[in-house]
C-alpha cells in the first residue's frame, strides 16, 4: 500500500479498534461513539488506495500474498461493517477492527514483497471475479469465526450464571449470534464454491485443464469439505449453538493455517508464480 494512503487508513482502523474496545468496556467517550464511522472511514480510504492501484495495474491488485492480505483485510472491513450495521451488533467490531488493523500493519512492515507484473496472457475477466469471490468467502469466514467467539464467551457466562454485566444490556442473544453465524457460513460457502468454479473455468481457458492439484487448490478443497460438513451437521443432526460455534473456530483455524502456510511455503500459481 502507498504510504500516503496507508498512514491515514491505519490510523482510522486503530481508532476504530480502540473505540470498539471502549464501547465494550462501558467507557463512554467520543471515540467509542465514532467506532463504526471510523471503521467505515478506514474502509473508504482503503477503497481509494485499491482503486488507484487497480487502475494503475489495469486489474485487481492481488498478484502476491501481501496484496491478497490487504485485499482480504479490505473485504473483511466491508463485510464487518455490513454485519455491524445490519444486525446492530457493535460487539463484532471489537473483533473485526483490530484484525483488519493488524493484518494491514503486518503487511506494511514485514510481508511486503516486490510486486509482480502479471503476464499479459493471464489477464482475463475471470481473474477479478475469481479472486474477489475467494477472498470474499474468506472474509465472511473471518467474521463467522468472530461471531462464534462472541457466542462462546457469552454462552460461558450464561452457564457460569454471571450473565448481566451492566454494559451487557445491549448484547445480542445467543439465538441471534447462532443464526448470524449460520448465515455467514452459508454465504461464505457459496462464495468459496463459486470461486472454485470460476477458478477452474479460468484455468481451463489458459492452461487447458480445470484442476492442477497444486497446494492452494488441494487445501481449498479440504476447506470446502470442512465447511460443507459444518453446514450439513446443523441441517441433519442439528448441531447448533456451542458445538457449531466451536467447530466454526476450529475450521477457521485450519483455513488460516492453510492460507498462510501455502502462500509462504508453496505459493505455486496462486502465489503469483505463473509459469
Amino acid at each position, binding site marked *: 500500500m502507498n504510504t500516503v494512503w496507508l498512514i491515514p487508513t491505519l490510523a482510522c482502523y486503530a481508532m476504530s479498534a480502540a473505540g470498539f474496545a471502549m464501547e465494550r468496556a*462501558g467507557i*463512554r467517550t467520543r471515540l467509542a461513539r465514532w467506532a463504526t464511522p471510523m471503521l467505515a472511514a478506514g474502509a473508504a480510504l482503503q477503497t481509494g488506495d485499491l482503486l488507484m492501484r487497480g487502475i494503475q495495474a489495469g486489474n485487481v491488485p492481488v498478484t502476491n500474498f501481501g496484496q491478497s492480505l490487504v485485499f482480504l483485510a479490505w473485504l473483511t472491513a466491508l463485510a464487518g461493517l455490513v454485519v455491524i450495521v445490519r444486525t446492530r451488533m457493535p460487539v463484532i467490531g471489537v473483533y473485526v477492527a483490530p484484525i483488519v488493523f493488524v493484518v494491514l500493519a503486518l503487511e506494511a512492515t514485514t510481508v511486503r514483497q516486490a510486486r509482480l507484473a502479471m503476464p499479459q496472457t493471464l489477464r482475463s475477466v475471470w481473474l477479478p471475479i475469481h479472486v474477489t469471490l475467494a477472498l470474499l468467502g474468506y472474509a465472511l469466514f473471518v467474521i463467522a469465526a468472530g461471531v462464534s467467539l462472541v457466542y462462546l464467551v457469552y454462552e460461558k457466562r450464561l452457564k457460569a*450464571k454471571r*450473565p*448481566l454485566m451492566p454494559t451487557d444490556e445491549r448484547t445480542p*442473544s*445467543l439465538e441471534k449470534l447462532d443464526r448470524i453465524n449460520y448465515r455467514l457460513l452459508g454465504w461464505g460457502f457459496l462464495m468459496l464454491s463459486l470461486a472454485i468454479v470460476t477458478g477452474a473455468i479460468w484455468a481451463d481457458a489458459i492452461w487447458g485443464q480445470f484442476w492442477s492439484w497444486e497446494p492452494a487448490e488441494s487445501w481449498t478443497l479440504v476447506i470446502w469439505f470442512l465447511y460443507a460438513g459444518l453446514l450439513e451437521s446443523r441441517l441433519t*443432526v*442439528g*448441531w447448533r449453538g456451542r458445538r457449531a460455534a466451536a467447530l466454526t473456530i476450529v475450521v477457521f483455524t485450519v483455513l488460516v493455517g492453510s492460507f498462510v502456510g501455502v502462500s509462504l511455503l508453496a505459493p505455486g500459481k496462486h502465489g503469483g508464480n505463473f509459469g
Partner: protein
Amino acid sequence: MRESLFIFGINHRTAPVAVRERLAYPEGEIVAALARLKQAAPAIDEVALISTCNRVEIMGVTIAPDRAQREATNFLACDRGVDATDFAPALYVHQARAAVRHLFRVGASLDSMVVGEPQILGQLKNAYAQAAAAGTAGLVLHRAFHKAFSVAKRVRKATLIGHGSVSVSSAAVGLAAKIFDTLTDKTVLLIGAGQMAELTARNLKRLGVQSLLITSRTFDNAVALARRLDGTAVPFDNFRPYLKLADVVVGSVAAAAPVIGPEEFEGVIRERRYRPVFMIDLGVPRNFDQRLNALENVYLYDIDDLSTVVQESIGDREREAEKAEGIVDLEVDSFLKWLGGLDLVPAIKDIRSSVEQLRELELERHRAWLASLAPGERERIESMTRGLVNKLLHRILSGIREGRAGVADGAYAAEIARRLLSNELAIEGDVLIDDDSDEDDDL
C-alpha cells in the same frame, strides 16, 4: 425577601405505609386540593403536590418559608383529617438549594425505594400537570419541574441507573432475552401453577410468548391458570412428552426429589436437535437436577442464581447512582444561578428607570436651547445622551450579572446600585422593591 423553593413531606424512608396511605391523595382530587391549599396558605406563592404510594410531598415557592410550612402542615392535617402529631415526626423539610436538589433526585429516581425505577418520572410529570391545571404553578415551579425532567433524562442517558433486573421474575425474563432473540415463536412449560410461576409467565407473555403449557399436581389449578393466561393445561402424570416442545421450562412444584433428571433430559435435547432450553427453577427443594446445566445448550437457573443476578443489578445501580448524584449537583447549580438572576430583575428595572429619568431631566433643563437648534442637531444630541446612558447602564448591569462587583450576591450588588442611583426614594426603597416583586410574579 427572596423567593425560595421548599419541599416538605414524607416518604417511604421516613414513614410507614400506615401513615403514607392516610396522607396520600387520590389522583383525581389533587387539582381541587391544590386550590384549597392555596386558599389556606397565603404565604405560599406557587405550589404543587406530589402524591405516590411512596411519597406525599408539598413543593412550593414562598418568601416566608417558616410561615409557609406551618400553614401547609396545618392544611394537610385538616384536609386529610389526620392529627398533625401523627405525621410530624416523619416530616422532612428542604429549603432553597436542598429543595431543588431533592426535586431533581426524586425525578432522577435516586430517592426511590428501588433506585432507578422508571415510574417516578411519570408520576412527577403528573404532579406538574395537575399544578399547572390548578393554576398554582408559576414561573419558578414551571422552570423547576422542566429542569427536573431534563435532569432525569440526562441521568438516564449518561448512567446505567435503570439497567438490570431488580426482581426474581424480571431477572428470569431478562435471562430469557439473553438466550433467545425473540420469544414469539417459543413455547413455555410451567410445571407447577404457583404465584411465582404465574408472575414469571406473565412477564414472558409480555415479551411475546404465545404458546404456554401448564401442568400442576392439582389439575384444576393448571386449568384455572391456563384460563387466566390463555394457555393449555396438561395433566401432571403425562407432561413429559411436552418437554421436547418447551424452550423455557419453569419449575415451581413442591417435590422432595427433582422432577427432571439429566439422563432423561439428554434424550429430550437430542429430540429437540439441540435447540437451547432455558430452565427456571423456582422450587425449594429444587425441581430440576443441577447437572442439567452441564448439558449442551441447556441453561439452568435456580432461585439462588436468580437472586444473585438481582443482587448484582442492585449493586450496579447503586454504583451508577453515585455518578447520577454528580449530574444532579451540577444541574442544581445551574438552576440556582437562574433563580438568583431572577431576583435581579426588579432592581435592574429600577436602575434603568432612574438613569433614564436623569437623562430626561437633563434634556428638560435645556429644552429652550434645544428648541433653538436645527432638527438634525437636536436629534444628534438626543442620540448622544441615549448612547452615553446605555453605555453606562451596560457596564453597571453586566457587571452585576457577572458578579464583578466583588460581592458574592448579585442581588446585593444590584440593590446597592439601585439605592445609589435613585436619590429621591432612598429611604422608602423597600416599599418599591415589594411593588416590583409582585409585578415580577406575573411575568
